[in-house]
Protein backbone atom coordinates (compact mmCIF):
# COMPACT_ATOMS: atom_id res chain seq x y z
CA UNK A 1 0.00 0.00 0.00
CA UNK A 2 1.16 3.51 -0.67
CA UNK A 3 -1.24 5.34 1.63
CA UNK A 4 0.08 8.14 3.70
CA UNK A 5 0.81 7.68 7.36
CA UNK A 6 -1.70 9.10 9.79
CA UNK A 7 -1.48 10.31 13.36
CA UNK A 8 -3.92 9.82 16.20
CA UNK A 9 -5.43 13.25 15.54
CA UNK A 10 -9.02 13.67 16.81
CA UNK A 11 -10.55 12.97 13.37
CA UNK A 12 -8.66 9.64 13.14
CA UNK A 13 -8.75 8.53 16.74
CA UNK A 14 -12.15 6.81 16.88
CA UNK A 15 -11.29 4.47 14.03
CA UNK A 16 -7.85 3.63 15.46
CA UNK A 17 -9.33 2.97 18.89
CA UNK A 18 -12.10 0.80 17.48
CA UNK A 19 -9.68 -1.38 15.53
CA UNK A 20 -7.28 -1.67 18.48
CA UNK A 21 -10.09 -2.86 20.75
CA UNK A 22 -11.09 -5.48 18.17
CA UNK A 23 -7.52 -6.80 17.96
CA UNK A 24 -6.87 -6.58 21.70
CA UNK A 25 -10.12 -8.22 22.81
CA UNK A 26 -9.75 -10.98 20.20
CA UNK A 27 -6.28 -12.02 21.35
CA UNK A 28 -7.14 -11.57 25.02
CA UNK A 29 -10.12 -13.92 24.94
CA UNK A 30 -8.33 -16.32 22.60
CA UNK A 31 -5.43 -16.65 25.01
CA UNK A 32 -7.76 -16.93 28.01
CA UNK A 33 -9.58 -19.86 26.40
CA UNK A 34 -6.21 -21.36 25.51
CA UNK A 35 -4.92 -21.00 29.05
CA UNK A 36 -7.96 -22.88 30.40
CA UNK A 37 -6.49 -25.94 28.67
CA UNK A 38 -3.39 -25.84 30.85
CA UNK A 39 -2.74 -29.30 32.29
CA UNK A 40 -5.52 -30.82 30.19
CA UNK A 41 -3.96 -31.03 26.72
CA UNK A 42 -3.62 -34.51 25.16
CA UNK A 43 0.03 -34.89 26.19
CA UNK A 44 2.70 -33.00 28.07
CA UNK A 45 4.50 -31.68 24.99
CA UNK A 46 1.22 -30.22 23.77
CA UNK A 47 0.68 -28.65 27.17
CA UNK A 48 4.02 -26.87 26.81
CA UNK A 49 3.28 -25.83 23.24
CA UNK A 50 -0.25 -24.57 23.60
CA UNK A 51 0.43 -22.70 26.81
CA UNK A 52 3.43 -21.07 25.12
CA UNK A 53 1.11 -19.99 22.31
CA UNK A 54 -1.39 -18.63 24.85
CA UNK A 55 1.40 -16.70 26.52
CA UNK A 56 2.55 -15.19 23.22
CA UNK A 57 -1.03 -14.28 22.35
CA UNK A 58 -1.59 -12.66 25.73
CA UNK A 59 1.55 -10.63 24.95
CA UNK A 60 -0.01 -9.54 21.67
CA UNK A 61 -3.20 -8.44 23.42
CA UNK A 62 -1.08 -6.56 25.97
CA UNK A 63 0.64 -4.64 23.16
CA UNK A 64 -2.69 -3.51 21.71
CA UNK A 65 -3.99 -2.51 25.16
CA UNK A 66 -0.72 -0.65 25.66
CA UNK A 67 -1.30 1.31 22.44
CA UNK A 68 -4.79 2.16 23.73
CA UNK A 69 -3.29 3.32 27.00
CA UNK A 70 -0.91 5.57 25.06
CA UNK A 71 -3.95 7.04 23.29
CA UNK A 72 -5.42 8.00 26.65
CA UNK A 73 -8.02 5.25 26.97
CA UNK A 74 -6.88 4.27 30.46
CA UNK A 75 -4.57 1.75 32.08
CA UNK A 76 -3.83 -1.30 29.89
CA UNK A 77 -4.45 -3.84 32.69
CA UNK A 78 -7.74 -2.20 33.57
CA UNK A 79 -8.80 -2.19 29.91
CA UNK A 80 -8.15 -5.92 29.76
CA UNK A 81 -9.80 -6.89 33.04
CA UNK A 82 -12.48 -4.42 34.01
CA UNK A 83 -14.51 -3.73 30.87
CA UNK A 84 -17.90 -5.47 30.89
CA UNK A 85 -19.04 -7.66 28.01
CA UNK A 86 -21.14 -4.90 26.45
CA UNK A 87 -17.99 -2.82 25.97
CA UNK A 88 -15.99 -5.62 24.28
CA UNK A 89 -15.30 -5.96 20.57
CA UNK A 90 -13.97 -9.52 20.31
CA UNK A 91 -15.52 -11.88 17.77
CA UNK A 92 -17.97 -14.58 18.87
CA UNK A 93 -15.58 -17.45 18.12
CA UNK A 94 -13.04 -16.61 20.83
CA UNK A 95 -15.58 -16.24 23.62
CA UNK A 96 -17.05 -19.73 23.22
CA UNK A 97 -16.14 -22.11 26.04
CA UNK A 98 -13.79 -25.03 25.40
CA UNK A 99 -16.54 -27.52 26.03
CA UNK A 100 -18.72 -28.64 28.88
CA UNK A 101 -17.68 -28.37 32.48
CA UNK A 102 -15.06 -26.23 34.15
CA UNK A 103 -11.35 -26.84 34.59
CA UNK A 104 -11.80 -26.38 38.35
CA UNK A 105 -14.20 -29.35 38.46
CA UNK A 106 -14.76 -31.88 35.67
CA UNK A 107 -13.76 -30.39 32.33
CA UNK A 108 -15.05 -32.22 29.27
CA UNK A 109 -13.18 -30.11 26.80
CA UNK A 110 -13.11 -30.98 23.14
CA UNK A 111 -9.63 -31.12 21.60
CA UNK A 112 -11.02 -31.28 18.06
CA UNK A 113 -12.85 -28.02 18.69
CA UNK A 114 -9.67 -26.46 20.13
CA UNK A 115 -7.59 -27.47 17.09
CA UNK A 116 -10.13 -26.18 14.56
CA UNK A 117 -10.87 -22.96 16.42
CA UNK A 118 -7.20 -22.22 17.00
CA UNK A 119 -6.16 -23.05 13.46
CA UNK A 120 -8.94 -21.08 11.74
CA UNK A 121 -8.44 -18.14 14.09
CA UNK A 122 -4.66 -18.14 13.60
CA UNK A 123 -4.95 -18.17 9.80
CA UNK A 124 -7.36 -15.23 10.06
CA UNK A 125 -5.02 -13.44 12.44
CA UNK A 126 -2.07 -13.97 10.10
CA UNK A 127 -4.02 -12.44 7.20
CA UNK A 128 -4.97 -9.41 9.29
CA UNK A 129 -1.42 -9.00 10.58
CA UNK A 130 0.00 -9.10 7.03
CA UNK A 131 -2.37 -6.28 6.14
CA UNK A 132 -1.56 -4.38 9.36
CA UNK A 133 2.14 -4.40 8.50
CA UNK A 134 1.13 -1.67 6.03
CA UNK A 135 -1.14 0.10 8.52
CA UNK A 136 -1.24 3.88 8.10
CA UNK A 137 -0.89 4.26 11.88
CA UNK A 138 2.79 3.55 12.49
CA UNK A 139 2.70 2.28 16.10
CA UNK A 140 0.27 -0.44 15.02
CA UNK A 141 2.30 -1.30 11.91
CA UNK A 142 5.37 -1.80 14.12
CA UNK A 143 3.55 -4.09 16.53
CA UNK A 144 2.24 -6.07 13.54
CA UNK A 145 5.81 -6.80 12.40
CA UNK A 146 6.61 -8.26 15.84
CA UNK A 147 3.40 -10.27 16.10
CA UNK A 148 3.88 -11.64 12.61
CA UNK A 149 7.21 -13.21 13.50
CA UNK A 150 5.74 -15.08 16.47
CA UNK A 151 2.68 -16.17 14.49
CA UNK A 152 4.89 -18.20 12.21
CA UNK A 153 5.29 -20.85 14.90
CA UNK A 154 1.65 -20.78 15.98
CA UNK A 155 0.45 -21.35 12.46
CA UNK A 156 2.84 -24.23 11.91
CA UNK A 157 1.65 -25.84 15.13
CA UNK A 158 -2.11 -25.69 14.53
CA UNK A 159 -1.83 -26.60 10.88
CA UNK A 160 0.09 -29.75 11.82
CA UNK A 161 -2.65 -30.83 14.27
CA UNK A 162 -5.42 -29.94 11.83
CA UNK A 163 -4.01 -31.87 8.88
CA UNK A 164 -2.91 -34.85 10.96
CA UNK A 165 -6.21 -35.36 12.76
CA UNK A 166 -8.11 -35.05 9.50
CA UNK A 167 -5.82 -37.65 7.95
CA UNK A 168 -6.27 -40.02 10.90
CA UNK A 169 -8.94 -42.50 12.04
CA UNK A 170 -12.63 -42.36 11.12
CA UNK A 171 -13.50 -41.22 14.64
CA UNK A 172 -10.96 -38.41 14.46
CA UNK A 173 -12.31 -37.30 11.09
CA UNK A 174 -15.88 -37.32 12.33
CA UNK A 175 -15.06 -35.33 15.43
CA UNK A 176 -13.01 -32.86 13.42
CA UNK A 177 -15.85 -32.45 10.93
CA UNK A 178 -18.22 -31.76 13.82
CA UNK A 179 -15.80 -29.16 15.16
CA UNK A 180 -15.45 -27.53 11.74
CA UNK A 181 -19.26 -27.16 11.50
CA UNK A 182 -19.39 -25.69 14.99
CA UNK A 183 -16.56 -23.21 14.37
CA UNK A 184 -17.94 -22.07 11.03
CA UNK A 185 -21.29 -21.13 12.60
CA UNK A 186 -19.39 -18.52 14.60
CA UNK A 187 -17.08 -17.37 11.82
CA UNK A 188 -19.31 -14.62 10.41
CA UNK A 189 -17.84 -11.77 12.47
CA UNK A 190 -14.18 -12.84 12.56
CA UNK A 191 -13.27 -10.51 9.69
CA UNK A 192 -16.00 -7.97 10.39
CA UNK A 193 -14.77 -4.50 11.28
CA UNK A 194 -18.18 -3.58 12.69
CA UNK A 195 -20.00 -0.31 12.21
CA UNK A 196 -16.68 1.58 12.17
CA UNK A 197 -15.46 -0.50 9.23
CA UNK A 198 -15.81 2.12 6.53
CA UNK A 199 -13.85 4.65 8.54
CA UNK A 200 -11.17 2.11 9.52
CA UNK A 201 -10.60 1.06 5.90
CA UNK A 202 -10.91 4.63 4.59
CA UNK A 203 -8.02 5.74 6.79
CA UNK A 204 -5.84 2.93 5.49
CA UNK A 205 -5.57 1.15 8.85
CA UNK A 206 -6.37 -2.27 7.36
CA UNK A 207 -7.80 -3.57 4.10
CA UNK A 208 -11.49 -4.19 3.49
CA UNK A 209 -13.00 -7.12 5.38
CA UNK A 210 -14.17 -8.82 2.18
CA UNK A 211 -10.67 -8.70 0.73
CA UNK A 212 -9.28 -10.28 3.91
CA UNK A 213 -12.00 -12.91 4.02
CA UNK A 214 -11.33 -13.88 0.40
CA UNK A 215 -7.65 -14.33 1.26
CA UNK A 216 -8.61 -16.65 4.10
CA UNK A 217 -10.80 -18.70 1.76
CA UNK A 218 -8.04 -18.88 -0.89
CA UNK A 219 -5.45 -20.05 1.62
CA UNK A 220 -7.74 -22.59 3.27
CA UNK A 221 -8.81 -23.92 -0.11
CA UNK A 222 -5.34 -25.35 -0.65
CA UNK A 223 -5.26 -26.96 2.79
CA UNK A 224 -8.75 -28.46 2.45
CA UNK A 225 -7.92 -29.80 -1.01
CA UNK A 226 -4.79 -31.49 0.34
CA UNK A 227 -6.97 -33.58 2.66
CA UNK A 228 -9.79 -34.09 0.12
CA UNK A 229 -12.34 -31.95 1.88
CA UNK A 230 -14.37 -29.05 0.59
CA UNK A 231 -14.17 -25.74 2.32
CA UNK A 232 -17.22 -25.03 4.50
CA UNK A 233 -19.53 -22.06 4.02
CA UNK A 234 -19.00 -18.94 6.06
CA UNK A 235 -22.21 -17.31 7.32
CA UNK A 236 -22.61 -13.99 5.51
CA UNK A 237 -24.79 -12.40 8.18
CA UNK A 238 -23.59 -13.47 11.61
CA UNK A 239 -26.20 -14.11 14.30
CA UNK A 240 -24.13 -11.95 16.61
CA UNK A 241 -21.50 -9.39 15.66
CA UNK A 242 -18.99 -8.99 18.47
CA UNK A 243 -17.48 -5.91 16.80
CA UNK A 244 -20.77 -4.15 17.58
CA UNK A 245 -20.80 -5.33 21.20
CA UNK A 246 -23.12 -8.29 20.56
CA UNK A 247 -22.06 -11.21 22.74
CA UNK A 248 -23.18 -14.46 24.34
CA UNK A 249 -23.43 -15.02 28.10
CA UNK A 250 -20.22 -17.02 27.85
CA UNK A 251 -18.33 -13.76 27.63
CA UNK A 252 -19.76 -12.54 30.95
CA UNK A 253 -18.64 -15.67 32.74
CA UNK A 254 -15.22 -15.59 31.03
CA UNK A 255 -14.63 -11.99 32.17
CA UNK A 256 -15.81 -12.80 35.70
CA UNK A 257 -13.29 -15.66 35.90
CA UNK A 258 -10.31 -14.01 34.23
CA UNK A 259 -10.59 -10.78 36.22
CA UNK A 260 -11.28 -12.35 39.61
CA UNK A 261 -7.75 -11.97 40.95
CA UNK A 262 -7.21 -8.56 39.39
CA UNK A 263 -10.39 -7.22 40.99
CA UNK A 264 -9.29 -8.39 44.45
CA UNK A 265 -6.67 -5.66 44.51
CA UNK A 266 -6.54 -3.40 41.47
CA UNK A 267 -3.61 -1.43 42.93
CA UNK A 268 -1.33 -4.46 43.34
CA UNK A 269 1.96 -4.39 41.45
CA UNK A 270 2.48 -7.45 39.22
Amino acid sequence: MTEQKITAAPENKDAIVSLLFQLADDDFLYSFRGSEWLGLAPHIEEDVASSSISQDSMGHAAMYYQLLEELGLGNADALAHLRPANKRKNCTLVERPNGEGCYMEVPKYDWAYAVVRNYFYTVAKKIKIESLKNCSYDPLAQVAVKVNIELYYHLLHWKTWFVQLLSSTEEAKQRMQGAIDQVMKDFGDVFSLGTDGENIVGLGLIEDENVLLQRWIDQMQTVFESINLSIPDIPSAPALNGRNFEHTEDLDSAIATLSEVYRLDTAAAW
Partner: protein
Amino acid sequence: MQMVLNSLEKTVLEVLEEVHDPEINTVSIIDLGMVEEVSVHGGVVDIKILPTFLGCPALELIKENIKKAVQSIEEVQEVKVEFINHPPWTSDRISEKGRKGLKAFGIAPPPRLMDSDGSWHVDCPFCGSTYVTMDNIFGPTACRSILYCKNCKNPFEAMKPISTLM
Protein backbone atom coordinates in the same frame (compact mmCIF):
# COMPACT_ATOMS: atom_id res chain seq x y z
CA MET B 1 23.70 2.02 18.22
CA GLN B 2 25.50 5.36 18.22
CA MET B 3 29.08 5.23 17.10
CA VAL B 4 30.37 8.22 19.04
CA LEU B 5 30.04 7.61 22.73
CA ASN B 6 30.87 9.92 25.55
CA SER B 7 32.48 8.51 28.66
CA LEU B 8 29.26 8.11 30.64
CA GLU B 9 27.64 6.29 27.74
CA LYS B 10 30.61 3.95 27.70
CA THR B 11 30.27 3.33 31.42
CA VAL B 12 26.55 2.62 31.02
CA LEU B 13 27.26 0.09 28.27
CA GLU B 14 29.86 -1.59 30.47
CA VAL B 15 27.36 -1.85 33.29
CA LEU B 16 24.75 -3.28 30.91
CA GLU B 17 27.21 -6.07 30.08
CA GLU B 18 26.50 -7.23 33.63
CA VAL B 19 22.72 -7.24 33.28
CA HIS B 20 21.92 -10.83 32.46
CA ASP B 21 18.91 -12.59 31.09
CA PRO B 22 17.08 -13.52 34.34
CA GLU B 23 16.76 -17.11 33.16
CA ILE B 24 20.13 -17.54 31.42
CA ASN B 25 22.85 -16.07 33.60
CA THR B 26 25.61 -16.65 31.05
CA VAL B 27 24.33 -14.02 28.59
CA SER B 28 23.82 -10.30 29.03
CA ILE B 29 21.19 -8.14 27.39
CA ILE B 30 24.01 -6.66 25.29
CA ASP B 31 25.01 -10.16 24.11
CA LEU B 32 21.38 -10.81 23.20
CA GLY B 33 21.22 -7.65 21.11
CA MET B 34 18.35 -6.22 23.15
CA VAL B 35 19.95 -2.79 23.72
CA GLU B 36 19.07 -0.57 20.78
CA GLU B 37 20.07 2.83 22.08
CA VAL B 38 21.79 4.49 25.03
CA SER B 39 21.76 8.27 25.20
CA VAL B 40 22.91 10.55 27.95
CA HIS B 41 21.75 14.12 28.59
CA GLY B 42 23.49 15.53 31.62
CA GLY B 43 22.92 12.93 34.32
CA VAL B 44 19.81 11.50 32.64
CA VAL B 45 20.25 8.20 30.85
CA ASP B 46 17.72 7.05 28.24
CA ILE B 47 17.87 3.38 27.31
CA LYS B 48 15.83 1.84 24.54
CA ILE B 49 15.35 -1.92 24.71
CA LEU B 50 13.93 -4.32 22.15
CA PRO B 51 11.70 -7.04 23.64
CA THR B 52 12.51 -10.53 22.35
CA PHE B 53 9.02 -12.05 22.58
CA LEU B 54 6.05 -9.78 23.30
CA GLY B 55 4.61 -12.02 26.01
CA CYS B 56 7.92 -12.65 27.75
CA PRO B 57 7.29 -12.30 31.51
CA ALA B 58 10.98 -11.54 32.12
CA LEU B 59 10.73 -8.12 30.44
CA GLU B 60 9.64 -6.20 33.55
CA LEU B 61 12.35 -7.94 35.56
CA ILE B 62 14.96 -6.97 32.98
CA LYS B 63 13.75 -3.37 33.05
CA GLU B 64 14.13 -3.22 36.84
CA ASN B 65 17.56 -4.86 36.70
CA ILE B 66 18.72 -2.30 34.12
CA LYS B 67 17.50 0.56 36.30
CA LYS B 68 19.22 -0.82 39.37
CA ALA B 69 22.50 -1.42 37.56
CA VAL B 70 22.67 1.98 35.85
CA GLN B 71 21.60 3.88 38.95
CA SER B 72 24.64 2.46 40.72
CA ILE B 73 26.86 4.64 38.49
CA GLU B 74 27.82 7.73 40.46
CA GLU B 75 27.21 10.38 37.76
CA VAL B 76 23.75 9.06 36.93
CA GLN B 77 20.81 11.01 38.29
CA GLU B 78 17.95 9.37 36.46
CA VAL B 79 17.44 6.27 34.31
CA LYS B 80 14.63 5.89 31.81
CA VAL B 81 14.11 2.49 30.26
CA GLU B 82 11.72 2.13 27.36
CA PHE B 83 10.71 -0.92 25.35
CA ILE B 84 10.39 -0.19 21.64
CA ASN B 85 9.08 -2.40 18.85
CA HIS B 86 10.99 -0.94 15.97
CA PRO B 87 13.29 -2.36 14.75
CA PRO B 88 11.94 -5.79 15.72
CA TRP B 89 14.32 -7.98 17.69
CA THR B 90 15.61 -10.90 15.61
CA SER B 91 17.80 -13.79 16.69
CA ASP B 92 20.66 -12.69 14.40
CA ARG B 93 21.19 -9.80 16.83
CA ILE B 94 22.78 -12.24 19.31
CA SER B 95 26.53 -11.62 19.33
CA GLU B 96 29.28 -14.23 19.01
CA LYS B 97 29.86 -13.85 22.76
CA GLY B 98 26.14 -14.36 23.33
CA ARG B 99 26.15 -17.53 21.24
CA LYS B 100 29.00 -18.89 23.35
CA GLY B 101 27.17 -17.90 26.54
CA LEU B 102 24.06 -19.75 25.44
CA LYS B 103 26.07 -22.86 24.66
CA ALA B 104 27.77 -22.69 28.05
CA PHE B 105 24.29 -22.78 29.58
CA GLY B 106 23.35 -25.87 27.54
CA ILE B 107 21.24 -23.97 25.03
CA ALA B 108 22.05 -24.29 21.34
CA PRO B 109 22.32 -20.82 19.77
CA PRO B 110 19.71 -20.03 17.12
CA PRO B 111 20.54 -21.27 13.63
CA ARG B 112 21.66 -18.53 11.29
CA LEU B 113 20.00 -20.04 8.26
CA MET B 114 16.70 -21.71 7.62
CA ASP B 115 15.96 -24.08 4.78
CA SER B 116 13.56 -22.94 2.09
CA ASP B 117 10.75 -25.01 3.65
CA GLY B 118 11.17 -23.15 6.95
CA SER B 119 12.90 -26.03 8.73
CA TRP B 120 16.14 -25.45 10.62
CA HIS B 121 18.94 -27.35 12.19
CA VAL B 122 21.13 -26.96 15.27
CA ASP B 123 23.87 -29.09 16.74
CA CYS B 124 23.97 -30.52 20.26
CA PRO B 125 25.45 -27.86 22.61
CA PHE B 126 27.03 -30.59 24.74
CA CYS B 127 28.77 -32.94 22.29
CA GLY B 128 28.45 -31.03 19.03
CA SER B 129 26.68 -33.92 17.27
CA THR B 130 24.39 -33.21 14.35
CA TYR B 131 22.38 -36.33 15.22
CA VAL B 132 19.55 -34.55 17.04
CA THR B 133 15.75 -34.60 16.91
CA MET B 134 13.19 -31.89 17.61
CA ASP B 135 10.99 -32.86 20.54
CA ASN B 136 8.95 -29.70 20.77
CA ILE B 137 9.28 -26.49 18.83
CA PHE B 138 7.83 -24.80 21.93
CA GLY B 139 9.79 -24.92 25.15
CA PRO B 140 9.83 -23.77 28.77
CA THR B 141 10.09 -20.14 27.65
CA ALA B 142 8.73 -18.37 24.58
CA CYS B 143 12.14 -18.13 22.93
CA ARG B 144 13.26 -21.76 23.29
CA SER B 145 12.58 -25.16 21.70
CA ILE B 146 13.23 -28.63 23.18
CA LEU B 147 15.47 -31.09 21.33
CA TYR B 148 17.17 -34.40 22.02
CA CYS B 149 20.69 -35.50 21.12
CA LYS B 150 20.75 -39.09 19.91
CA ASN B 151 24.52 -39.21 20.20
CA CYS B 152 25.15 -38.18 23.81
CA LYS B 153 21.54 -38.98 24.85
CA ASN B 154 20.92 -35.60 26.42
CA PRO B 155 17.82 -33.50 26.05
CA PHE B 156 18.69 -29.89 25.33
CA GLU B 157 17.12 -26.59 24.37
CA ALA B 158 17.74 -24.30 21.43
CA MET B 159 16.95 -20.64 20.86
CA LYS B 160 14.30 -20.39 18.17
CA PRO B 161 15.34 -18.61 15.02
CA ILE B 162 13.42 -15.35 14.79
CA SER B 163 13.53 -13.41 11.56
CA THR B 164 11.46 -10.81 9.75
CA LEU B 165 11.51 -13.16 6.75
CA MET B 166 9.09 -15.46 8.57
